[in-house]
C-alpha cells in the first residue's frame, strides 16, 4: 500500500526524478518522540508517505522508547532530524536548531494537563498530595517539567510530594495509568489528551482535567545546527513547511489533528525555559 501510494504520487509529479534514481539515494532518517502517535501504525505510515512524497526520497521514521534516546540519536548523528519536545531542545539548545513548529488549533502552542480519574474530587495539584503520580518521561515538558516546576514553586519535589511516581514512557500511557486506576494523577500533554479524546473517547472519559498549564511552545522539528545546510535537511524543512499544501501531507496532518507546520520562532519556548530555570536548570 505504502509503496504503491508513494509511486502513484511520484508518477503524478513531473518535478521528481525517476524511481530508480530515488532508490539509489540513502535513507533519510527522521526520529519521532513518543507523542500520542507512538503506537498508531496508520498515523506513522501516513506521515512517512507525506514526507517521502514531500522530500522526493524514502524516509525512515525512527522510534525509541525514551526522549533521551531520541535526543542522543539526533546528537550523535544516528538520525538526520527529529520531532522532539521543547524541553530537550532547550537542554541542547547550543547544538540544535529548529526546522518547524506544528500549529495546533490555530497556534504553535499547547498546554500540559494535570489529570485524575473521572471520579476523583481533586481541584488542584495540592489535593493530589500523597497519591501515586504518573509522568510521561523525565525529558518531557508537559509530561514532567510543568508539574515538577509547579512543585518546585511549592518547595516540593515529586518524590516528596507524591507517595510514588512512575514514568510510563508515553502520554497515552499516562492516560491509561490514570484511567485504569494504577495511579491517582498524571501529567500529560494537553494536545495528546485532546487528540485521544477524539480517537479513544472511552479511555479519555475515565479521566478528568484538574488543571491546565499556561500555553507553551509545541514540540518542534529540529536538526543538529551543524547540519542545517545539508541539502537533505533543507529538503525536509521545505517538505514540512509545505505539508498542508499537498494531499498526502494534508491527510497526515488531519490524522495528527494539526493545522500545518509553521516557520520556527525560538521565542515560543521561553515559557519552558522559565520553568527549567525554576527547577534550577539553565537552557
Amino acid at each position, binding site marked *: 500500500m505504502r509503496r504503491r501510494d508513494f509511486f502513484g504520487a511520484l508518477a503524478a509529479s513531473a518535478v521528481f526524478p525517476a524511481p530508480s534514481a530515488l532508490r539509489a539515494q540513502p535513507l533519510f532518517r527522521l526520529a519521532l518522540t513518543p507523542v500520542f502517535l507512538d503506537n498508531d501504525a496508520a498515523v506513522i505510515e501516513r506521515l512517512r508517505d507525506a514526507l517521502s512524497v514531500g522530500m522526493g526520497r524514502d524516509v525512515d521514521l525512527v522510534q525509541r522508547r525514551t526522549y533521551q534516546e531520541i535526543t542522543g540519536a539526533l546528537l550523535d548523528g544516528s538520525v538526520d532530524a527529529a520531532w522532539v519536545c521543547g524541553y530537550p531542545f532547550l537542554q541542547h539548545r547550543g547544538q540544535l536548531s529548529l526546522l518547524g513548529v506544528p500549529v495546533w488549533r490555530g497556534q504553535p502552542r499547547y498546554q500540559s494537563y494535570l489529570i485524575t480519574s473521572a471520579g476523583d474530587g481533586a481541584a488542584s495539584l495540592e489535593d493530589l498530595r500523597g497519591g501515586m503520580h504518573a509522568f510521561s518521561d523525565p525529558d518531557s515538558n508537559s509530561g514532567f517539567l510543568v508539574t515538577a516546576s509547579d512543585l518546585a514553586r511549592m518547595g516540593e519535589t515529586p518524590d516528596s510530594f507524591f507517595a510514588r511516581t512512575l514514568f510510563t514512557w508515553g502520554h497515552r500511557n499516562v492516560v*491509561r495509568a490514570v484511567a485504569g*486506576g*494504577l495511579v491517582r494523577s498524571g501529567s500529560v500533554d494537553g494536545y495528546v489528551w485532546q487528540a485521544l479524546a477524539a480517537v479513544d473517547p472511552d479511555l479519555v472519559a475515565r479521566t478528568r482535567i484538574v488543571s491546565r498549564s499556561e500555553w507553551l511552545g509545541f514540540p518542534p522539528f529540529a536538526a543538529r545546527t551543524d547540519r542545517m545546510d545539508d541539502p537533505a535537511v533543507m529538503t525536509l524543512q521545505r517538505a514540512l513547511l509545505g505539508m498542508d499544501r499537498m494531499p498526502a501531507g494534508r491527510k497526515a496532518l488531519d490524522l495528527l489533528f494539526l493545522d500545518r507546520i509553521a516557520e520556527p520562532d525560538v521565542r515560543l519556548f521561553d515559557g519552558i525555559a522559565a520553568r527549567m530555570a525554576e527547577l534550577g536548570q539553565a537552557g
Partner: protein
Amino acid sequence: MRHGAISRIPITLRVALAMGVLMIVLGMVASQQVLRSLSRLHDDRLREIARLHVEGLSVALGPFVLHKDVWEVYDTLDRARAASEGQRMLFTVVADDRNRVLAATDPLRAPVDSDATPFSENASDLAALTASGNEPRVRVRASLSVAERTVGQIVTEIDVGDLVAERRRVSVYLLLANAAATALLAFAGYVLVARMLKPVTLLAQHMDDAGGAPSRIPEIEIPKSDTELARLLRTFNTMIGAIGARAEAEKRLAERERFVSLGRLSSSLAHEINNPLGGLLNTVDTIRTYANRPDVVQRSVELLERGLVHLKDVSRAILDENRLDRAGLPLRPTDFDDLKLLFEPEAAHKRQTLDWQVQADAANLASIPAAPVRQIVLNLLLNASAAAPEGGHVGLSVLPRDDGIELTISDDGRGLSAPDLDRLMSSAPVAPGGGVGLRLVHDLVVGLNGRIRHARGAGRTLLKVFLPKGEAA
C-alpha cells in the same frame, strides 16, 4: 411382613423391578464415571489454560518484577487483559518478593504497594488447580523467577463458571438419560421376562384354578419348543392326571367301604334272620298240629307275627342302610333304633354287653343328615366291637349339645393303633387297609364340619364325635 409384601408381587414384576434397580445402580456408577472423567478433562484443560497464561506472563514480567517496574508490569498485564477480554482470566495480580502488590489488572482492587496476601492465601498451585468445586471462579498462584531466582509471584483469578455450568448440565442430562434408559430397559425387561415366564404364570393359574383345585393345562397353551418349562408343564399335566385318578380311586373306595360294614354284619344278620326262622317254622308246625285249638293257634299266630315283624325290621334296616336315595334325609331317633337292630346281633354274637343311650330327641337331630351319621356310627361301633374282647363292653351315647350333638362310642379293648389313629384323626395320606372305614369316618366328619376327639383311660377307649347343627335346622 415386608418380605411377605414383596413375595406377593408377581414374579414377572419382581424381575422387572430387580432389573430396574440394577439399571439404576449401573446408571449411577456409569454417571459417576462420566462426571469424574469430565471433571478430570476440565481440570486438565483449566490447568493447561492457566499454565499457558501464567507461563506467558512470567516470561514477560520476570525482568520488570525484578526491577520492580510498576508501569511495565501494569502495561503488560493491561495488554494481556485487553487481549483476553471476555475470556477466562478475570483478574491478575503481581507481587514482589515481599508479597507487596506491584500491579494488578484492576489496581483499584489491588492497589500498588498493598499486601498481596489476601489474594495469594487461598489460591492453589498450578498442579492442584481444579474446577471441581461449585465456585464459578478459582485462583491460581505461581512463582515468578528470573535466572533461577524467585523475584515475586503472580496470582490469577480464572472464570470456570462455564465449566461448572457444563458439568451441572451434563449431570442433569445424564440423570434424565439414565432415568429414561432405566425405565425403557426395565419395561423391556418386564415384557421379556413376562414372555419368558408365561408358562410359569400359566402353571400358577392352573395350580389353583377355580377355587383351589389344580386343573389340566390345555396342550395348545404349552409352548411348542422342548424347553424345560414345556417339560415342566407336561409333567404338571401328568401329575394332574395322577391326582385325578387317585381321587377317583379314593371315591370308589369310600363307596365300597359303605358295603364293607354291612359285609361285616352279614354273618350275624344271617343268624339274626335264620334263628327266628327255625322258631317260626316250629310255630307253623304247632298251628298245623293244634289247628283245632283256637287258643294255641292264637298264640302261635301272635308269635309268628312278632317274628315276621322282627324279620321285616331287620331287612328294612339293611335295605335302609343300602338305600342310595336316603341322601338328604334328616337324622331321626329311629335311625339309632335301626343301628341298634343291625348291630345288636354282632354284639350278641360276641357276648358283648351293649350300653345304648340315645338322649337327643328329634329336634336336636333334625338339622343333621342321616346317611353320613349312620355310616359314622356303624363303622365306629363295628371297630369298637372288634376291639372289645369276648364278653366285653361296647357303648354308644348320643347327647344333645348347644350347637349340635355329641356321639360317644366306647369299648374296653386295647385301644387304637397309631396307624388307625392317623387314619381317623388326620387328613395325611395313609396306606390302605386297617380299621373298618376309619378314613371314611374321618372324611365324613370333616364333610359335616365336625371333629373327633380320642381319649383313653381306665381300660376304655372313647371316641367323641361332635357334629354341629347344619343349615337345615
